[in-house]
């Protein structure tokens, strides 16, 4: 008797709601922490990065104009689906990070809970970060946070799901659209996350995932003039300065990497506020 042969999954990119291979035709082997082969991941090219930005830009008007309540509902739905794939994530995190199953399980649980936490902010951030401003004149004056636009996110290494969720959720809950470069060494949970997103109500293009070499993908995103902001959480320390210099060209908002991130800590507002713009509106008060 043969044991049943498993049907393996092909890990692809996620661009504009579709799962293409890299236009370059390249892939790279993903191994466990112990060096065993896990799968081949697509090795995205600069052109894939460009396509991802196009998809994110296209999705921005719709996603940013959705009501905050709607965004919150859509993102909560993602958490429900994540919960359903809990065991798969535990396996992938354990394999990719070389973590014990119990550790991986707590990572996955924390990631799902974090997603829920952020989903709830959708219709609350404006109340906390916005204001009515008591100006010295007959004007009604208010300020509101608005999404910055297309945000390129370099997902952090060593925390392939919790870290990823911790940088992605704050970007999209505020109405931005994202181009994510997955952790190079452990990209599989990220790809699985996009499969969850694809079956959720998150519109195609709101999240776009690139797997591959960070050193290859980060520079074109940093210099891309249609990218409004960048989270350098996963940038190698030696590359940060060069990426910031490239990002200066269109005055990108850049969130610098935390030298010693603790993804299990309560995140606070910082990552959401990094990718919103405050808009102030004045109107006269008269009869």
């Amino acid at each position, binding site marked *: 008797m043969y044991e049943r042969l498993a049907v393996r999954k092909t890990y692809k990119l996620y661009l504009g709601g579709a799962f293409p291979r890299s236009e370059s035709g390249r892939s790279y082997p993903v191994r466990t922490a112990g060096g065993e082969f896990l799968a081949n991941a697509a090795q995205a090219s600069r052109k894939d990065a460009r396509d991802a930005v196009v998809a994110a830009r296209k999705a921005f008007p719709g996603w940013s104009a959705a009501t905050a309540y709607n965004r919150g509902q859509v993102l909560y739905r993602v958490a429900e689906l994540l919960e359903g794939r809990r065991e798969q994530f535990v396996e992938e995190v354990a394999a990719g990070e070389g973590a014990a199953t119990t550790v991986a399980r707590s990572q996955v649980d924390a990631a799902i809970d974090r997603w829920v936490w952020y989903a709830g902010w959708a219709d609350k951030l404006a109340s906390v970060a916005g204001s009515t401003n008591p100006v010295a*004149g*007959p*004007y009604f004056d208010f300020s509101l946070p608005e999404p910055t636009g297309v945000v390129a996110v370099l997902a952090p290494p060593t925390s392939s799901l919790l870290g990823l969720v911790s940088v992605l959720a704050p970007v999209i809950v505020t109405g931005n659209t994202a181009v994510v470069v997955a952790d190079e060494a452990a990209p599989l949970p990220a790809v699985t996350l996009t499969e969850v997103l694809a079956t959720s109500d998150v519109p195609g293009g709101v999240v776009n995932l690139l797997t591959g070499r960070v050193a290859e993908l980060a520079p074109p995103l940093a210099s891309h003039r249609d990218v409004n902001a960048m989270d350098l959480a996963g940038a190698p320390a030696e590359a940060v300065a060069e990426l910031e210099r490239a990002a200066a060209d269109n005055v990108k908002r850049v969130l610098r990497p935390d030298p010693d991130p603790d993804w299990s800590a309560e995140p606070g507002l910082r990552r959401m506020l990094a990718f919103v713009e405050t808009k102030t509106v004045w109107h*006269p*008060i*008269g*009869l």
Partner: protein
Amino acid sequence: MTTTAAGLTDVTASAAALRRFLFGLPGVDQVGAELRTATLATRSVKTTAKLALLDTAVRMIDLTTLEGADTPGKVRALCAKARRPDPEDPTAPPVAAVCVYPDLVTPAVEALRGSGIAVASVATAFPSGRASLATKLADVADAVRAGATEIDMVIDRGAFLAGRYSDVYDEIVAVKHGCGGAHLKVILETGELATLDNTRRASWLAMLAGADFIKTSTGKVSPAATAPVALVMLEAVRDFAAATGTAVGVKVAGGVRTTKDALRYLVLVHETTGDDWLTPDRFRIGASGLLNDLLMQRTKQRTGAYAGPDYYTLD
């Protein structure tokens, strides 16, 4: 936005057309209008320019008494003041007109004969305007018969606020007819119209109906003349002249007590309609106490010494 001259012939053809026209006028943003007048209030008028403006302001005054206690004697005294405002200074010009109730037109006409100073009379059940059209027309006829050459009528604010614009229009047309050759000033009583949008609509309504002047207020309602109201009315006459070629005058009345107030209005005229309106034919100030303040400033400009009220007559 503003209509063309050709369009204006049709706008009074029906109540509906008139209403449509008035509601098609551009809105007025109150805060913006107040900001504009506040900025213009910082204009500084100095030296020769100030002296010329002071004399112009005197010549624009409708010297007014509208009290229940008015008597022929009071009116005669006012007329003497109108002819020669500053007994010590013959260069002080006379005022534009003396403004009284209809029953006191006769003594005013007698006292002003040969002076070139007009006699204006309020009419149409001033100040409330709450009487029948027949009564209002009789009021006008009395004043005209007694020799008034200018009639200051009040519009029916109740009708205006109730949206019966064509009633207001028709009444003005009827009064205009009753004026004969007398000039008609239409008092909008903007303090009761409450909004600057209403001020603009009422201004156009009055001009369409044949007003020679549009006037802010009776002086019996607060607020009376204000700078934003005057601004909107000046914009209206400016735009009406551009659309029709007819220049209508503006009269501010009520609350204009100091030289500073008066000069601010003249600055408003200069900046809004241009200097074509800086003449008594097109701009008037209804006031009484203002005159002495202007005279005191005038003396200060001429002599360099500050004046005192004891040197100016109280009539």
